[in-house]
C-alpha cells in the first residue's frame, strides 16, 4: 500500500528552513531558507562547489542536514521519505548509470521500484521525450555524455512525478541538446503542471526557463527573486562603494531604498530604476556618507559573476 500526498496548488512544494550542513570544519550549506511553489520552474544558481548539490542531496534525503528542516509537499522529508519520493524524480550531478544495461532496461528497472505501476507506453514516451528512442536498445557503455544525461533525465521522468529536481541537467550536452532540455523543462511546467527545481552554474541557462531564481555562494543565499524582476531592463543593478557600509546601509533604509536592496553580503547591491540612481546618491551624501563610487552592472550575469567571484 503506498501513501498519497495531497497538496493544493498554492502550497509550497518545497519549503526549506534554515538548513545547514557541515563536513567537519567546512560549512557546505549555511542557514539556507527558500520556498518553491507548485507549477514553478525554480532556478538554483551557484558556482561549482557553492553548495547546490549538497542542498539537492539534502532535499532527497541522501545527506542528513546538520540543522534546519526540509518539507516537500508540506511534509517533513525525514519523517515521510518514502511517500514523498514516490512523487519526486531527480538527477544529481553526473549521469551515472549501469554500463551493461540498455536505455530501455534502465527505465524498466527504475519503473519497477515505483509503488505505482508505470505503464510500458510511458517508457517509450519518455525515451521519445528526451530524444533517445533511436538508441533505446543500446547499452549505456556506448553512449556519449550527452546521451547519458538525457537518459538520466528520462529516469527522473518515467514515473510521472509531480516534482522534478534536475541538478545541472545540461552538463555535457551540445547546444541543440541544451535547447531541447530547456524546451522540455518549459513543457513540463507549462503543459503538465509539474514543479521543476533546476540547478546550474550558468545564469544564461536558467534565466530563460525559471520563474524564480535563487543564487547561492559558499553555502549562503546571496539573492532570491522573480526572474522577470531581476532581469527587468528598466532597472539597473547598482553596487555602492562607500567608506562605511554599515552607515550607508542605515542611510539607504532611512531614505526608503530598502525595497531595492539585493544583498549586503559581498558589498551593497541594489536593483533600482535608472532614474532613481541620482536620488540615492544625493540621499547618501546628505547623510554624510563618503561615497567612493556607484557602479552599474549591465546584467544579472555581471552581478552573478561579481558576487560569486568576490568572496
Amino acid at each position, binding site marked *: 500500500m503506498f501513501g498519497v500526498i495531497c497538496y493544493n496548488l498554492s502550497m509550497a512544494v518545497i519549503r526549506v528552513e534554515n538548513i545547514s550542513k557541515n563536513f567537519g570544519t567546512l560549512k557546505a550549506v549555511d542557514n539556507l531558507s527558500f520556498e518553491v511553489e507548485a507549477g514553478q520552474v525554480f532556478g538554483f544558481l551557484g558556482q561549482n562547489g557553492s553548495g547546490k548539490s549538497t542542498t539537492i*542531496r539534502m532535499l532527497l534525503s*541522501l*545527506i542528513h542536514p546538520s540543522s534546519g528542516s526540509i518539507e516537500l509537499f508540506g511534509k517533513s522529508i525525514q519523517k515521510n*521519505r*518514502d511517500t514523498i519520493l514516490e512523487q519526486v524524480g531527480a538527477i544529481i550531478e553526473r549521469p551515472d548509470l*549501469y554500463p551493461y544495461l540498455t536505455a530501455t532496461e534502465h527505465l524498466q528497472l527504475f519503473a*519497477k521500484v*515505483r509503488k505505482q505501476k508505470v505503464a510500458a507506453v510511458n517508457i517509450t514516451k519518455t525515451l521519445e521525450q528526451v530524444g533517445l528512442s533511436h538508441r533505446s536498445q543500446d547499452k549505456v557503455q556506448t553512449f556519449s555524455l550527452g546521451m547519458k544525461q538525457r537518459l538520466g533525465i528520462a529516469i527522473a521522468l518515467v514515473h510521472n512525478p509531480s516534482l522534478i529536481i534536475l541538478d545541472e541537467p545540461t552538463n555535457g550536452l551540445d547546444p541543440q541538446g541544451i535547447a531541447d532540455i530547456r524546451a522540455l523543462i518549459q513543457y513540463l511546467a507549462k503543459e503538465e503542471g509539474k514543479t521543476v527545481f533546476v540547478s546550474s552554474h550558468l545564469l544564461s541557462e536558467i534565466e530563460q526557463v525559471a520563474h524564480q531564481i535563487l543564487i547561492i555562494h559558499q553555502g549562503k543565499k546571496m539573492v532570491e527573486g522573480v526572474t522577470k524582476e531581476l532581469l527587468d531592463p528598466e532597472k539597473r543593478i547598482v553596487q555602492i562603494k562607500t567608506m562605511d557600509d554599515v552607515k550607508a546601509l542605515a542611510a539607504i533604509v532611512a531614505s526608503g531604498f530598502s525595497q531595492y536592496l539585493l544583498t549586503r553580503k559581498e558589498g551593497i547591491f541594489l536593483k533600482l530604476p535608472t532614474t532613481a540612481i541620482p536620488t540615492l546618491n544625493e540621499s547618501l551624501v546628505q547623510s554624510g556618507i563618503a561615497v567612493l563610487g556607484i557602479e552599474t552592472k549591465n546584467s544579472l550575469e555581471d552581478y552573478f559573476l561579481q558576487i560569486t567571484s568576490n568572496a
Partner: protein
Amino acid sequence: MWSLIQIELYKIFRRPRTYIAFGAIAALIVVIQFGLKIDGDAYASFLMKDINDTLTVDGKVLNGYLICYILLQLLLVHVPLLVALIAADMISGEANLGTLRLLFTTPYSRTHWVLAKFIAASIYTILLLIWLAFLALFVSMWIFGTDDLFLMKSNYVVLIEQSDVLWRYVGAFVFASFSLLTVTSLGFLMSSLSSNSIGPIVGTMSAIVFFTILSTLNIPLFNIVKPYLFTTHMNNWKEFFDIKVNIDNEAIKGSILNIPKIKTSLMVLTLHIILFVTASVIIIKKKDILS
C-alpha cells in the same frame, strides 16, 4: 521487497564478472576430475600406501563420492574468495559507479535496499554452491561411479556405506552454505564502509586469510579467541563424514559422531551473519551519500 531483490539479481547476472566464479569453479573441477580419471589409480595407491599392510580394501576406492570429498576439501577454502568478488562489490561498486544515489532516491528505504542486496548476494552464493555441488558430486558420480566412501583421517579411517553417503553430502552442502553466507555478509559489511570496489574485495579476502591463519595456529593465546572466529567453524562440514561406531567398532549407519559441534558451528556462523548484516544496515542508514 521482492521487486528490489529481482532488480539486484538482474544486475548481478547481467555483469560479466559474475560468471568468473562459475567458470573458475568449473575449470578447477574439470581439471582435477580429468587428472584423477587419467591417473587416479596411482593417486589411490599413494593414499593407501600406509595402510596397505594392515587393511585390504575391496571395491572402487576412487569413486564419485571420494572425488567429491577431495574436491570439497580443495575448493571450499577458495570459494569464499570468489564469493567476496561479488558480495564485497554490492554496495561499494554502486557507490563507485555513482548509481547508489539513484537507488536511494527511490521510495524504498535504505534498509530495504541493503537487505535486498544482501538477499541477492546470498542467492548468488547459494547458486554458486549448487553449481559446485552439481559438478563435484553429480558429475563425479557419473564419471567415476559410486561405491562405499573410504576416508583417511589423521589417525583413523572411516568407511561409510554407499547408501549412507548422499544425505551426508546434502548436510555438508547446507552447512557450507552457512559458511559461505558468513563470507557474503562479511564482504557486505566491508562494502558498506567504502566507496570503491577494490578495498572491500581485498579487505574481505585478507580478513578470511588472517582469521584462517589464527584458527589454524595452535598457540595458547589464540586458542582463547578461536571458538569465536567464524573461520574456525567454516570447515566443520567434514563432521558429517565422521560416523559413530558400536562396541564392535562397526559403523552405525545414519549416525554423526559430533552433532553438538555442528550445531555450535551453525550457531556461531549464524550470529556472525546477523552481526555483519545488522552493522551494514546501521552504517548505510547513517551514511551521507556523497558519491
